[in-house]
């Protein structure tokens, strides 16, 4: 939630609704598809959009962690899956597992699942880097007034509490509270003063906040909603094309193209599936393409 930093490009300047629709469509498609070609297509387009948004650095740190996870998935699958028929390695017998059999299908299945994981992690990375949490929240504020306000308030108070925590820790250390040595348990016990001060101060602060809200008429009647996000042609393009991607995805799933059977032998990859994947991937590439054009041609900037 705290990773959002504004960057000046088209992706960051999209209407929050467009951003949210893009994220949710990619997420839903990643869940629908198990076909590696579709997943690969999704990964490429999400990657391109992240690249266009200038969030590659953050993405890399996410990916480093998820590659580890992916390796783990592949390994576990290889060890425990017995369904594959193309054995490429016959190992010695191991306790509990039995004899080690590595099949091509099991590796492929692990890789396919990792691909899905990468797509989901990537879209999550895009969500947390490129979408202003405040804006995203306000999208829903029309629906649930109070709960959205509560979330906004906590988002506002969070950095404040981190500051409080640092300051109070420093002060209590100067009073001889030892937080740098001793066992885990001792340190936890020694941090009780800090936690209780934060609690007391937060209670006092929440009372003052409530007073300030009351003094500005909160709860005096129905509220209106002010937002100042512009709806531009680019938002329309992207939403329409994202919807096309979603419909194509659903249609592919309807046709049974989007699923893939790994066992007992890998299913052959056929033309209609590849075409479907290419359509979805290229349609979802639109934000990245628009961003590129937006940077390249000043004339386009004002048109879209």
């Amino acid at each position, binding site marked *: 939630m705290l990773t959002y930093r504004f960057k000046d490009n088209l992706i960051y300047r999209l209407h929050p609704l467009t951003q949210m629709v893009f994220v949710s469509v990619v997420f839903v498609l990643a869940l629908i598809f198990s076909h590696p070609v579709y997943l690969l297509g999704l990964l490429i387009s999400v990657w391109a959009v992240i690249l266009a948004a200038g969030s590659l650095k953050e993405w890399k740190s996410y990916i480093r962690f998820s590659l580890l996870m992916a390796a783990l998935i592949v390994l576990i699958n290889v060890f425990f899956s017995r369904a594959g028929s193309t054995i490429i390695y016959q190992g010695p017998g191991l306790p509990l597992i039995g004899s080690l059999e590595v099949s091509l299908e099991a590796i492929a299945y692990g890789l396919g699942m990792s691909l899905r994981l990468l797509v989901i992690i990537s879209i999550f990375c895009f969500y947390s880097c490129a979408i202003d949490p405040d804006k995203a929240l306000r999208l829903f504020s029309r629906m649930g007034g109070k709960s959205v306000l509560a979330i906004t308030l906590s988002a506002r108070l969070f950095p404040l509490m981190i500051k409080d925590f640092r300051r109070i820790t420093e002060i209590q250390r100067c009073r001889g509270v030892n937080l740098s040595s001793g066992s885990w348990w001792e340190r936890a016990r020694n941090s009780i003063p800090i936690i209780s001060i934060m609690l007391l101060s937060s209670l006092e602060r929440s009372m003052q906040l409530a007073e300030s809200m009351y003094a500005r*008429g909160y709860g005096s009647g129905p509220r209106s909603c002010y937002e100042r996000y512009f709806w531009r042609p680019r938002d329309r393009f992207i939403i329409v094309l994202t919807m096309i991607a979603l419909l194509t995805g659903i249609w592919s799933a309807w046709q049974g193209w989007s699923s893939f059977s790994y066992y007992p032998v890998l299913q052959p990859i056929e033309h209609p599936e590849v075409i479907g994947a290419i359509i979805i991937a290229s349609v979802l590439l639109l934000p990245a393409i628009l961003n590129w054009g937006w940077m390249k041609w000043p004339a386009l900037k004002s048109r879209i």
Partner: protein
Amino acid sequence: MAGIKIQDLNYCYPETIKPALNRINLEVSEGQLLIITGNSGSGKSTLLRAISGLIPAFYNGNLTGKIYLNGIDTAQIDRRQMVQEVGMVFQNPESQLVMMNVEQEIAFGLENLGLPAQIIKRRIMEISSSLGISSYLGHNVSELSGGQKQKVALAAVLAMHPGILLLDEPTSQLDPVAAEELLNVIRRLNEDHGTTVIMIEQRLERCCHLADRILVMENGVISADIKTGNRAGVMWPPRVSVTYLPPLPGLFARAGFQELPLTVKQGRQMIKAILAAGIKPDLSLGDFGDLSGKPGEALLEITDLWYSYPNSTDEVLKNLSLTVKEGDFIAIMGENGAGKTTLLKNLNGLLRPRRGKVFLDGQDTREMAVEELAPSIAYLSQDPNDFLFMPTVREEIAFTLKNLNLQEDGYSETMLYKFKLDTYTNCNPRDLSTGERQRVALASVLASKPRLLLLDEPTRGLDYQLKEELGRLLEEINRQGTTVVMVTHDVDFAAEYARDICLMFDGEVIELGDKYKVLQHATFYSPQVARLFHKIADNVINVADGVVVLQELTHSIRQDAVSFW
């Protein structure tokens, strides 16, 4: 027609018997700028909340009497209407902002009123241009400085177009520059838009020249209602304590004057008038010589200290060398970002020098943990609430001793007595007033009998009386052998109590020396009293000096008159 009219107002907070407001009668005409002052607990904030309707609506409690806004009883006005008549800005900028983003914050109140987006947009545009906050309209609130936050809070209230603006010590958490800026905005509102302003302020020197009227409150009653206006000074009723007065009029009051100047300009005119009437005596006080007394051993030695924060290339401290001798009382002054607080944290081990060394008694502090330094170096920061969490004052003080593995030897009892806390030993420190809380925090860090006391902005949010009490306490502690180093923006406080002044600028020590030498001919960093006697009398920088000179002046006039007759 009066803007506000209050008739026989009494109020008790829930579950209390003692009235917080006692038979208040007050009329404020439209467009007045009124300042309310008085000790904490005198009912100032309560009065403001009663006018705004927060009392009794938000606080409950028992209210009798009437308040009229433009002739209409406030009890008859519905809340939505009320918040558009009366706007209220609170003391602490952190705890009155609700949204994450500045623009949304300003919109918040307008949304609460159910105004259409088009009008909200228009109001945001107007208010942000007129308060000069357009440049950070899209910013997150957490990125702003204290002064900017307070301006946003003001904008959020003004966007609702209140005819009456109430402010509860709006500048108390701000540094002098930011406070000045905010007060200018408030004055402009009052002058250009005719907004009625009622403001609680402890530091009258910042704002009393702006006021049309000053109210003094004591124990829930208005004890003085002073008209300012265009005369040379104000008439201060002799029965009202002079502790509410800023240094300048306080000086004249203590010297026995009836009419008190509010600004240095007025004060100088008064002195010039007296001088013109009689012969000019030699007013300069003698050179006090070296006030630092016994030279003392070096307690803390800082050599070639450099510091920059991690993840930043800015050098906050640059090649700083400084020696603090045993028994010193040094005030460190300088603008925001000069590195004052960073320096303090390098002294008590919270930060480690990047280059250079800090020696405590000849021992390199880089080899000592914060916890090891804690028994010798005590640290009091701005907000006493950051210290207090124990259920009683006694336990709060015992907590420090326990942490530092020290034995209770009866010292804390004498300290409680000295700090006038002996009657509160079994009270919860959080239930005490601001000044008392600060004294508990101070007592709790002094319990270990440290050799060095570091203070960061100790006078922030304190009224004159509390400042004076704190100053005397620090003098006493210092006299008993504790070395004191304090960071402060408060020139008058430094001139009054410190012995040496250290001026910092951009990470360097620009000057360190006796306060008379440093402050006397300063321009920005010069106390009001020094400015008053500039080129009239030398070596006068604090109230005590000023009283001597003023009395000598009036005395010489009287003698002059006697010899004439």
